[in-house]
C-alpha cells in the first residue's frame, strides 16, 4: 500500500491537471455606463394594501442609473449552449436561489437561476403576494405566497430572454427571471459592473439584454462604436481574464 501511494498521488495530480489547468479558465468583466444625463426614476403609486406598501417609497425600476452613470440590471449571458463548464463554476448549481417579495417589490429585480436549480420564492412582507412568472419554454406559474410563506420552483429548460415576474395583487411589482442552461450569466450591479467567472478560454458569444431596451444592439466598447444584432457579441476570453472596460449605451437605446 505504502509503495502505491506515490504512484496514486502522481496519477491524481495528472488527472486534476487534465481537468483544470489554471490557464484554461478566465473571467469576463465590464461596466455598463449611461451615455447621457442620468434619468430620474419615477415614483410608483402603491394604491393597494396602502397601509403596508404605502410606507415604502417605491421607484420604477425599468432603468436604474447610478450616481457615476453605471446602469444596473443589464443582463449578460453566454449564448453558446454547449459551452464547457469549469468545475468551479459548476458548484453554483447546488445552491438555492432566492427571489423575495420584500417591501412590495421583487428582490432582486432580476434573478438568475440555472436549469434544474432550485428557486425559492419568498414573501417577507406582512401581506400576501402572488408571483406570476411568465416563462415561455417552461410552464408559466402563478403561486399565491402568503405572508411569510415560500414556494419552491425548478425549471426544466432554458429561456431565450428573461421572463417577466409580476404580482397581480400589486400590479406595480415587476421583476425578471433569467433561466440559463449553465452558470455563465450575470446581472449588472448598482454601479453598472458585471463579472462572469471561470469561463473556458477562447472565443464565446455573449448576449446583452435590458428590460427597457430589449436586446442591446448598439453600444460603444472602449470608445469604439459597435453593432450587435440581437445583442450578440463575440468576445475572446483570455487566460488572465478579459476586461471589456466601459460599455457605453446611448440614451436613445432606452427611448423605445
Amino acid at each position: 500500500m505504502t509503495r502505491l501511494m506515490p504512484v496514486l498521488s502522481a496519477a491524481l495530480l495528472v488527472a486534476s491537471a487534465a481537468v483544470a489547468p489554471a490557464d484554461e479558465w478566465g473571467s469576463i468583466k465590464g461596466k455598463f455606463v449611461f451615455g447621457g444625463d442620468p434619468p430620474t426614476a419615477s415614483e410608483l403609486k402603491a394604491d393597494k394594501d396602502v397601509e403596508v406598501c404605502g410606507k415604502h417609497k417605491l421607484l420604477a425600476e425599468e432603468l436604474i442609473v447610478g450616481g457615476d452613470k453605471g446602469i444596473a440590471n443589464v443582463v449578460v449571458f453566454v449564448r453558446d449552449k454547449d459551452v464547457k463548464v469549469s468545475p468551479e463554476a459548476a458548484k453554483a448549481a447546488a445552491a438555492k436561489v432566492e427571489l423575495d417579495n420584500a417591501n412590495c417589490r421583487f428582490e432582486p429585480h432580476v434573478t438568475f437561476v440555472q436549469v434544474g436549480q432550485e428557486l425559492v420564492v419568498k414573501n417577507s412582507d406582512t401581506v400576501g403576494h402572488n408571483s406570476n412568472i411568465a416563462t415561455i419554454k417552461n410552464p408559466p406559474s402563478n403561486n399565491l405566497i402568503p405572508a411569510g410563506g415560500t414556494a419552491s420552483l425548478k425549471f426544466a429548460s432554458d429561456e431565450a430572454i428573461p421572463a417577466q415576474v409580476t404580482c397581480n395583487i400589486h400590479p406595480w411589482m415587476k421583476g425578471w427571471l433569467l433561466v440559463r442552461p449553465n452558470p455563465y450569466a450575470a446581472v449588472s450591479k448598482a454601479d453598472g459592473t458585471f463579472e462572469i467567472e471561470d469561463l473556458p478560454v477562447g472565443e464565446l458569444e455573449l448576449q446583452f439584454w435590458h428590460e427597457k431596451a430589449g436586446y442591446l444592439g448598439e453600444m460603444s466598447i472602449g470608445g469604439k462604436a459597435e453593432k450587435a444584432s440581437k445583442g450578440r457579441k463575440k468576445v475572446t476570453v483570455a487566460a488572465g481574464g478579459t476586461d471589456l472596460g466601459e460599455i457605453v449605451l446611448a440614451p436613445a437605446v432606452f427611448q423605445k
Partner: protein
Amino acid sequence: MIKPRQSPLPGMKMVSRSGLRVVPVLAVLVAAVGCGRTPPAAFRLNMVQATKSAAPEAGMEKPWAGWARERQAQVATILEAMFGTPDEPVALAETGLDHAKLALAAGPVRSDIVGRKNGLYREHCAHCHGISGDGMGPTAAFLNPYPRDYRPGKFKFKGTWRDARPSRDDLVRLLHQGVPGSSMPSFALLPPAQVDALVEYVRYLSIRGETELALYSYAEQELGTDDRFPETREFLVDEILTPIVEKWQGAEEAAIPIAAVPANVDFSKPGDDPANRESVARGRTLFHGDGGCVKCHGVTALGDGQANDYDDWNKVIVEWSKEVSGGLAAGKSDAARSAWLHAAEDVIEGDALRPRTIPPRNLRLGLYRGGRRPLDLYRRLYTGINGAPMPGVGPSGPGGKGSVPDEEIWHIVNYIRSLPYDFDGELGVDRPLVAKDRF
C-alpha cells in the same frame, strides 16, 4: 366531404401568397367567378404578434413595411402548408388530430348526406370566436367577457395543472355546461359526435395558433433582417410543431390530484348545517388568511377587493400600447422604427379588441363560470385560473407544496358555497340574507 391532403412537408411546392389580411388571389377568384358567390373563408394572421415581434433593430436600412410584409407572407405560406384553410383543414400525422372530425366541423354549413351536417364550427362558434379562433368574430366586441381567443392555447376552466392544456373531457364538459355568467351557451343538445368534432376543431385552431406564435417568437430571437424561416421538416415539424403537440397530448395525463374530502365536510348539506359549521369556519379563516382570497374578492367576498388587473389576453395589448404610445410621443425614432410604431398603432386600433380589466368574481351570487360542483371550485382554487390574475393555492406542479394543504382546500370550497346565503351575517342584518333578493 373534404379529402385529406397529402402531408405537404417537405417537397410539396408551397403556394406563395403575397397578400396578408386580404389575399388578392381571392379578389381575382371572385372576379373570375362573378358576383353573388361568397369567397372562401381565409384564416387571418395574428397581426398583434406579427407586428409586435417585428420591431426593427437599430439602424435597419430596409424599408420596414416591405420587409415585414415579406415575413408575414412567409408565415401565411407556412401555416397554409401545415394546416390548410378553413374550408380544407390539413392535419399532419404529427398533430395526432382526427381528420374526419375536423372535416365535420370545418367549412361552410352544408349537408350532402342525409342525417349528417358539416360546417359545425361556422354554425355554432365562428360568429363569436372567429374563423381563425382568434376570439374576434363579428359579435365579439359587443360581449363581456370577450370570447376566448384559442391561439395562445390557454384555457381557464379545466381539471389539469394550471399551465397544462385542457384534456378532451375538459372541453367536452365546457361545451355541455357553457360558461354561466358569460355569453357562452350550453351545447348539451348537440349529438355527442358533433361535440367531439367541435372539440377536435378547437384543438386544431389552438395548435395552429400556437404554431404561428412560436414562429414569431423564433423570428424575434433568431432571425436577422435578411433571414427567412427554414422551410424544412426538421425546423417546422420537429422544432416548432412537436413541442406544441406534446403539450396537447400530455393534457390527457395532466389532471391535478384531488384530495380526499375531510370528515367534517358534507357537501350534501348547506353551509349553515351543523355538519358543516366547523369546516365553513375553517374555510373562512383560510379565505382571509393563507388562501389570500380576500385580497381581490374583498372582505365581503363581493368581488370588491383591490384588484383591477388585466387577464393575459388583454394585458398583451395594454403593455404593447404603452410602449407604442410612448414611442410615438417621444418622436425621436429613425425611419424604420417610426414605420413600425405607426403600423403598431393601426394594429392595436384595428386588429385587437379594446382591453378591459378583469374584475374578481362576486362570490355572493352563487354563479361560477367554470361550474358549480364542489369539484369545480376545488380545481379553480387548486391551480388558480390559467390566463387570469387568480393565483393557485395548491402546488404549481406534481410534488410541489401549495400555500394551503390540498385537503384544506375543501374547507374554502365549503365556505364559498355558504357565501350566497350569508349565514354568519357578515354583510350586516339590514341586508337581505338570500342572494337573489339582494342583487
